[in-house]
Every structure is written in C-alpha cells, then in structure tokens.
C-alpha cells in the first residue's frame, strides 16, 4: 500500500512533512530524541486530533476512512503500551483481529489460525497462555508486534520496535519485517539497523530534513549536524555493507 | 403538707434533701425557694422564679402558654404545626427564633432565665443545638420535659427508644414542675386536674365499647410515597393512647417511630388506621390527602380491613408527640372508635 503525506503538521511539533512511501517499502525514520518521530507516525496513522495536512492511502484520503477501515489497512505499535488487565499473551494478540470482527462474524477458527501464525512469527507460540504481567520487556514488545501482525495490515507502523529486544530478536524482527509483503514505516535509533531500510527519513526539530537511500542520507556531514556525533563509516569486507563507528564531537568544532 | 412542719426540726440539710418532695406537693399556693429539682439526670436549683424563658420545642411552648406565662417567653423554636387556636393571640407577640432548630447563640443572645426543652436531641447529651452543660456554663439553666426522658433511652433508636410505656403522668409532671419554677404552682395543679378529667372521660367512652380484639396502626409519614412508612412503635404517646382505649398496636418495635414494611402491616391487618395530619410538606406523604389516596390505591393496603371498612382516623401529628395535645387526640380517637362497628 502506498502512503502519501502532504504537508503534515501538528502544532509546532511536526511541521510541513511531505513524503511518499511506496508499496512494500521498508521506510525508516531516524532523528534525535524529541525530533517528532513518534508524532509523525501517529499522524500517519490518523491518530492526532486537529492535525494539519493530509495522508492518502493508495490514493484514498485517510480522513474519509472510518477508524475500522483504517485499522483494516494499517497497524500501529506504539512506543509505550501497557495494561493493568490480567490478559494472557493470546488475549493480547487476539485484539489484533478486532477490526475484522463484528456481531455477525465473531471470532472463529480462521482468526485463531491467524493469531497462531502471528505468535509463531515473533517466537511467542510457547508462551500463549502466559499472563501479560509476567512478561519481560522484550517479550511484551514481541507480543505487541504479533498483535499488529494479527491485524493483517497492508501498512505496518512501528515505533522503535527493537526496543527492549536482545540482539538475536532485533535481527530476527528486522528480518521478519523486511520479508513481509507490506509497507513498513518504523522509527529507529540504531543507525546501523537503519542502514537495512530501503529508504530513510531524517527528522530534526519537527521537520523531515532529509529523505532518501540510507547511504545518501546518513552522510558524516548530516550525522554531525543532526545527531551531533562524529561518525566513522567502515566497510564490512564480508558483504561490502557500510557500518558506522560513532565518536563524540571534537570540542574544538 | 404534713412534711412542712418537719423542716425546722431537721435543719437545712434535711430540707435540701426533701426539697423535690416538697416541690412536688401540688397544693402549695407559692413555691418555696431555693427550689431543687432533679430533671432528666441534671440537678437544678432555682433561687427565684426566672424572669424569662426561651422554648425549644412546640410542646414546651404550648405548656408555657397554657400556664399563662406567655409574657415571659422571649422566643420560640422547633415548630411542628401551627399553634393551638387559643394561643394564637399570645403567640403573635412572641418572636420565633427558628421554625426548626435554633442556633445556640441565638438562644443565648436573648439572655433567658431558663431554656425549656421538649426533646433531648435538640438540647441534651448529643443535642444538635447544644448540651445542657454548654448552657449551664453560661449560667442559663435548662429544663427538659420529663416526657422525653422518663423511661426513655435517647442514645439508641433514631428518635430514642422507650424503656417503659409513655404515660400522661410524665407530661403532667412537666406541667407541674414548670408551674413551680415560675412560682405559679396553683395554675399547674388546676391544669393537670382538668386534663386528667378529660383523659378519664375519653377512656370511659372507649371502655364502654368493650373492645375485644381491636388493633391499630399509627402512620406518621413516609420518606417516599410507596416506601416503608414511619409508624408508631411500642411505648410512645400513640402506644399509650392505644393501650388506654383498648387497642392493640400491631407494630412491635420499641423505637418511637420505627420504619416497618407495608407487608408486615398489611399482614397484621389492624382494625383501625390512624393517620397524622401535619403542616409540614417535606415528604409527599406528609400530605393527608396523599396518605388517603395511597390507602385507596395501593394494591395490597387497599385490601386491608380498616381501609375497606373505612375505619380511618385522622389526628393532629403534634398530638402524637408527648404534649398537652395528647388529650385532644385521645378524645378524637375515642369518639371515632365509638362510631365504628368494631364488634
């Protein structure tokens, strides 16, 4: 599914963001803390009240879709989402089916299979009966992603999905996401992981200051200006990919 | 009278001990001061008749008026219904401090020589106006009508609980003691004698009916029209009236005005229903017309014998509280019974 944002804005926090994300693309958002990444993701999901600008999904304006129609197309995993309810892992993932259910089509065996597959995709199939409160941070993050997968969206919006995950699960998740036939938009902090995206948008102070292929965007110059770090690009001889080594800015500059 | 000559011989101490006894002697034309009284657990001493009084409670107010002491009343409070017609003129000249509870300060500000109290829940151990000590601390004596404390425990039940059946004697005692305090004992004696005579006549009228198994319920009011009503319990003024006239009270609670379910009352099926008529319009059921309508229309209550036979008596609500109006109520009820076919 193709996403077009035109002149998106919310108060002073996100200003004039226009971007087109292609069908099936994995699009990364990077930027310092407070630069507006989460806000922009929520804007793309149509969740900010009184937003400026427009979002179009496959040529249809988001504003004209009902919440249910949006949720059938687009799933969002937010940075912080917790519950006090004594839900089990399966209960939480079942919630992903919500936009597809109605009194006339209640939760059925097909939905159960979809939930099973989503659990398996994040490696949580063995913990389906565990209570939410007993899960570790990384396990919770994976359940959230399973819930988003169970929603069977055509656009997956993830806010720092690798947060809390161990290195194995970080790589597994990014591999999973890249392999999905859906459009993915995600905010990331690890710039080496960001290098795996098809394209990147760089947020700074509410504006998208750069957008393009990772190698074009994450130039040492940009990194110094936006992230205030000195980045040393290095080539991995095994596959020729670029890695960064980060160093503090020199005090003299 | 025979006690009087003994006083000089036994000396002053003995005289003090004997004082209440002496005070209770009805035939004295003059009170001998200092007057000692034991009043609802408080010992009172009067060196002279108080020059002024504030009344807290309509029953106390009307006793003072009946004793022709209206000119000493500085203010009245706690009114349940309009004043008796014979006291309208005198009452018109007396300021009304409050329709309901007066504030402590408004009473004190009048600097009364006495505060005459009908109910302990206004002025008493848990009094909402003040305790008696608070008045005593300011040198203001309080007199509580014995009808609210003799044989009554005011610490339990919402309106207190009668340990012994109320009788007119406690009220007569209040009349006579107030007369003594104000140095008009002969007025008290005469008033009580007249009341006793009317009481006996009313009882005789009912006695002539030779009631065998007649019963009654007194319905005061209800917080909501259909809700369980406030009815007279065992031991209060209505219970006394029923007993005196040969009626059995179908309500068994010892509280003064307990809440009892209509199903219990209907099942007990009393032969007579007595309704309270009042000026108060706080609850819908305060209105006598609404009470009568309920009796006619409620699917269960309308089936009761008393309703079907029309054996309904309407009494002044204040006549159901201990007061000189009890005698009016007793007369009305007795006359009504004579008109019913209760055999």
């Amino acid at each position, binding site marked *: 599914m193709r996403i077009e944002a035109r002149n998106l804005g919310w108060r002073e926090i996100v200003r004039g963001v226009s971007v087109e994300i292609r069908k099936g693309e994995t699009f990364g958002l990077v930027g310092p803390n407070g630069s507006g990444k989460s806000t922009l993701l929520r804007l793309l999901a149509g969740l900010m009240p009184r937003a400026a600008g427009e979002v179009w999904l496959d040529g249809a304006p988001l504003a004209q879709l009902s919440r249910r129609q949006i949720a059938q197309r687009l799933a969002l995993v937010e940075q912080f989402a917790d519950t006090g309810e004594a839900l089990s892992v399966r209960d939480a993932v079942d919630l992903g089916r919500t936009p597809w259910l109605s009194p006339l089509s209640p939760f059925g065996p097909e939905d159960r299979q979809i939930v099973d597959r989503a659990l398996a995709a994040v490696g949580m199939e063995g913990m389906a009966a565990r209570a939410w409160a007993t899960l570790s941070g990384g396990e919770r993050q994976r359940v959230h992603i399973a819930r988003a997968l169970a929603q069977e969206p055509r656009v997956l919006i993830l806010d720092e999905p690798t947060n809390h995950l161990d290195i194995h699960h970080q790589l597994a998740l990014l591999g999973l996401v890249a392999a999905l036939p859906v459009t993915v938009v995600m905010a990331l902090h690890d710039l080496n992981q960001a290098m795996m995206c098809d394209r990147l948008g760089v947020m700074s102070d509410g504006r998208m200051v750069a957008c393009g292929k990772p190698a074009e965007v994450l130039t040492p110059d940009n990194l110094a200006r936006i992230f205030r770090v000195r980045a040393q690009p290095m080539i991995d001889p095994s596959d020729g990919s670029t890695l960064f080594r980060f160093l503090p800015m020199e005090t003299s500059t | 009278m025979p006690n009087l000559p003994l006083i000089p011989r036994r000396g002053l101490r003995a005289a003090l001990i004997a004082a209440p006894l002496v005070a209770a002697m009805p035939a004295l034309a003059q009170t001998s001061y200092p007057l000692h009284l034991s009043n609802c657990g408080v010992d009172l001493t009067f060196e002279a008749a108080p020059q002024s009084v504030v009344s807290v409670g309509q029953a106390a107010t009307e006793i003072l008026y009946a004793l022709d002491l209206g000119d000493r009343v500085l203010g009245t409070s706690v009114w349940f219904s309009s004043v008796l017609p014979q006291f309208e003129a005198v009452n018109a000249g007396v300021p009304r401090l409050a329709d309901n509870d007066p504030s402590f300060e408004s009473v004190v500000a009048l600097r009364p020589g006495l505060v005459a109290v009908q109910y302990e829940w206004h002025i008493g151990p848990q009094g909402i106006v003040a305790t008696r000590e608070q008045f005593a601390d300011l040198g203001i004596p309080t007199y509580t009508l014995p009808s609210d404390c003799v044989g009554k425990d005011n610490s339990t039940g919402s309106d207190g609980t009668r340990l012994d059946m109320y009788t007119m004697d406690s009220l007569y005692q209040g009349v006579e003691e107030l007369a003594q305090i104000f140095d008009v004992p002969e007025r008290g004696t005469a008033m009580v004698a007249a009341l006793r005579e009317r009481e006996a006549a009313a009882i005789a009228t009912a006695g002539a009916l030779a009631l065998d198994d007649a019963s009654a319920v007194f319905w005061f009011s209800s917080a909501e029209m259909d809700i*369980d009503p406030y009815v007279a319990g065992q031991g209060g003024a209505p219970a006394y009236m029923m007993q005196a006239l040969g009626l059995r009270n179908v309500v068994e609670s010892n509280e003064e005005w307990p809440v009892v379910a209509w199903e219990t009352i209907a099942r007990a099926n009393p032969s007579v229903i007595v309704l309270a008529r009042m000026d108060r319009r706080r609850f819908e059921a305060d209105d006598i017309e609404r009470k009568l309508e309920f009796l006619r229309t409620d699917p269960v209550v309308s089936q009761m014998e008393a309703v079907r036979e029309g054996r309904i008596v309407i009494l002044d609500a204040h006549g159901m509280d201990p007061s000189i109006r009890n005698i009016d109520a007793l007369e009305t009820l007795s006359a009504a019974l004579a008109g019913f076919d209760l055999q």
Partner: protein
Amino acid sequence: MTRRAALSALAVPVLSRAGLGAVLLALAVLAGVTIGEVALPLGLVGDLLAVKLLGIERALDPIEAGILWSYRLPRTLVAAACGAGLALSGVVLQALVRNALADPYLLGVSAGAGAGAVAVTLLGLGGGAIGLSAGAFGGAASAFLIVALLAKAAGGGPAQLVLAGIAGSQLFNALTSFFIAKSANAEQARGLMFWLLGNLSGVRWPDVSLALPVVGLGFLVCLAHVRPLDAFSFGSGAAASLGIAVRRVQLVLIAAVTLMTATLVSLVGSIGFVGLVIPHAMRFLVGPRHARLIPASALAGAVFLIAADIAARVLIPGQVVPIGVVTALVGAPGFALILIRNRRRS
C-alpha cells in the same frame, strides 16, 4: 470451516451457559419472592402463577397474594435490574478509564442524585410537583453534565474524568450537607439518609417497567461493545489503532452507564459496592475478556443484589436494614478476599 459453521459450533456452549444463568436468576427471584418479613405459605407462589399466568381460578387471600405479586415480585425484579445495571456500569467504567477503582458513582451521579433529592424534599424545589425520584434523576444528570464538561475542559483523558468525578462528587455532597444543615430537622435528615443508603421497599410495578427496559437496553449496548471494551485494555490510543471509534464508543457507553445509574439511583437510592466488587470478582472467575465478563457480571450483580435485599429484609426481624449497608457488609470482606487470592495467584 466457514464463519457460519463456527458460529453454530460456538453457539452450543454459549446457549448452555445462558441457560445456566437463566436458571440461577430464576432461583434467586423465587427466593426473593418467598423470603421476607412476613412468612407466606410456600404453595402460594404456584397458586399465584396459576392465576396470573394460566388464568386458572383459585381462591387466594388478597393480602397475601398482593404482598407476593405487588410488593415482592416487583421489588425482586428491580433488585435484579439494579444489581445487573450497577455491575455493568462498573465493568464499563473500569475498562474506559483503565482504573480498577472506578465504580458507577465515579461520575458524580450518586452525589448528584443525593443533592437533587435533598433539594426537592428540604428546599421544596418544584413545589411538591416533583417527587424524590425525579429530583434525584435531575440531580444525577446535572452532576454528570458538570463532571463531563469539567473533564473535557481539563483535557478529556481518563485521568481527567476520574479527577473531575471526584471534584463533582465532593461539590454535590457538600451541597447535600449544606441543604441538610440549612433546613432540616433531625427527623427529616434521617429519612433522607435512609433513602440515600438504598431502599427497595417502595418499589412497585411502574418502577419495574422503568428499570427493566433501561437496564436491558444498557446490557445490549454493553454486549454490542465487548470488543471495543477489550480493545481499551492498552489504552484509548491502542483502541483507536485497532479500529475503535474511540470518541463515539466512549460517548455511547458513558451515556448508557449514566442513564442506568441515574435511573437506578433515583429509584432505589445509591447502593454501593456492587459496581466495584462484582466486576472484580467476575474478572477473577471468568477472566478479563468482556464477551464473558459482561454477561457474567450482569448475572452475578442481579443475583447478588437479590440476595442482599433478602438479607436486608430478614437480618433484623420486624425492621428493614438499608440494603447499601448489607452490600457493604458483604462486599468489603468479599473484596478483601479477592485481593488476597489475586495476589497469591500472580
């Protein structure tokens, strides 16, 4: 398997559970009409049913039959409606504001009802044309309106609603105390307190025809929203991204809750603890999913309040204890037990 087949496969256990619930409720109602202050012959229920439902002629004592049919049956039905309505309101509010302490009176409805009732009886508001119940309903509705406006002005989140509810309740409780202090004597205040603690003794058939439809409607609204309610588990943002029209759902559900509680409070006074304890007890028994929690809480609330009403009638012979006292007496220890057992489990 198609969805339709899945539906019928699910229908069997659902139907049998619904059947079990109906039997439980019927037994509770039977107990409610047979146990009371006055002992009635046991055969009377059967005889009465024969007369009322089958039209068979039987000679019945009019007073006994009347007590059963005109007093106890409506009273028991309203108790059931009231218990179900309060429990449902508790479930819904706890889900919407994501606070385990939310109860039906959170929105200031009960405080408003109290103030309304007192205003009518003590201040003579409405000049006698408005009864206690109408005053209570008016008070409940205006309190809710104030709370809702305040919550909206404060940002409109669940925390703001809780805080606005507390502020509104305090305001209306203070008004009640003020009215009482200003113009009541002790006897009047007592009548009101009795009413405020909950009293079912004045319930008649017209009240049934108000309470049952309102609670029935509320139940259907809740049933239709079991999935949205589940979706609120991770907050309203998560609910929105799951396709829930958050504003509309909140509006519809809060309207249903307000209508139910305001109606019930105006009919029988504010009965505490049911709306708090029953939902938690049922979460413990059937889990947090609303598809089960909603019907289970409605049923348990209904049965619990019928039982509490029976206890209120027979606890002190010849006298009635306010039902709110009974629910709190049973509810508080019951709640403590749930808390302790819950901790052991997790």
